[in-house]
């Protein structure tokens, strides 16, 4: 069986915002995630933003850990 993977990326948050900090992963590696379910919370200086899962699957790998910075478009984690 071919395993399909999907990336959880930092969404384009609009003008002026170039990077975020990962605040909290709401799921652990190996945990099942529903499509559109909040999976990771990222923050800018004045906003907290829950990133929804792009599809249903299992959180295979956390790429950017809590506390680390990531630019817009960066892959935060991988689903399988």
């Amino acid at each position, binding site marked *: 069986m071919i395993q399909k993977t999907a990336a959880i990326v930092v969404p384009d948050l609009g003008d002026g915002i170039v990077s975020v900090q990962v605040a*909290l992963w709401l799921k652990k590696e190996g945990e099942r995630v529903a499509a559109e379910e909040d999976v990771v919370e990222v923050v800018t200086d004045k906003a907290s933003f829950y990133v929804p899962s792009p599809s249903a699957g299992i959180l295979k790998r956390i790429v950017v850990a809590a506390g680390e910075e990531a630019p817009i478009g960066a892959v935060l984690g991988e689903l399988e």
Partner: protein
Amino acid sequence: MVVSGGLIDYARALERQRALVEDVIAGGPDTLFLCEHPAVITLGRRSHEAHLLRPRKDLAAQGVSVISVDRGGDVTLHAPGQMVIYPVVNLKRRGWGLGEYLRKLEQLGVDLLKGFGILATGDDGRRGVWVGKEKVASIGIGVRRWVTYHGMAVNVNNDLGLFRLIRPCGLDVQMTSLGRILGKPVDMAEVRRRIEQQFKDFMMGSSI
């Protein structure tokens, strides 16, 4: 839609906001939730415990609770006489980015003060609403499924002495209020009416 919460406990108001967020995610109308809170210090996601300037047990003894919440921004304080503005807005539906929304929120504060004859400014770097070097309103928001919650707190008649308990937003700033600038207490109902009107005109167009 406008919801007036009156004086409402912070945790209960947050529950209320979460329910409103669910309604808006499900396609409901954008909603403005206005209220005041009994004295409470909240820590945002980027708050530093060091910005609490008193031990938690001393704060508790003074009747000031401390709550960690899922919003951006550093430590802040709410108290009766401060107007708390929680817009629950679907950004995707409006085509607004986060930065654009934060600026609109700030502008709402600037316009509110202008209505009282006070010249205030926003600040792209520090955010919030400022009169000279003093801060009148603080901003910190949360976003779920592109729907906003938390928002902006405008000091109107609240006891500014309470801000000595914290380092507001992690900055060494002097806080001020409408009441202090005008030299007299300001009618909260009037403030509420003006914010509701501004929200309809400026933030919402005709779709609220």
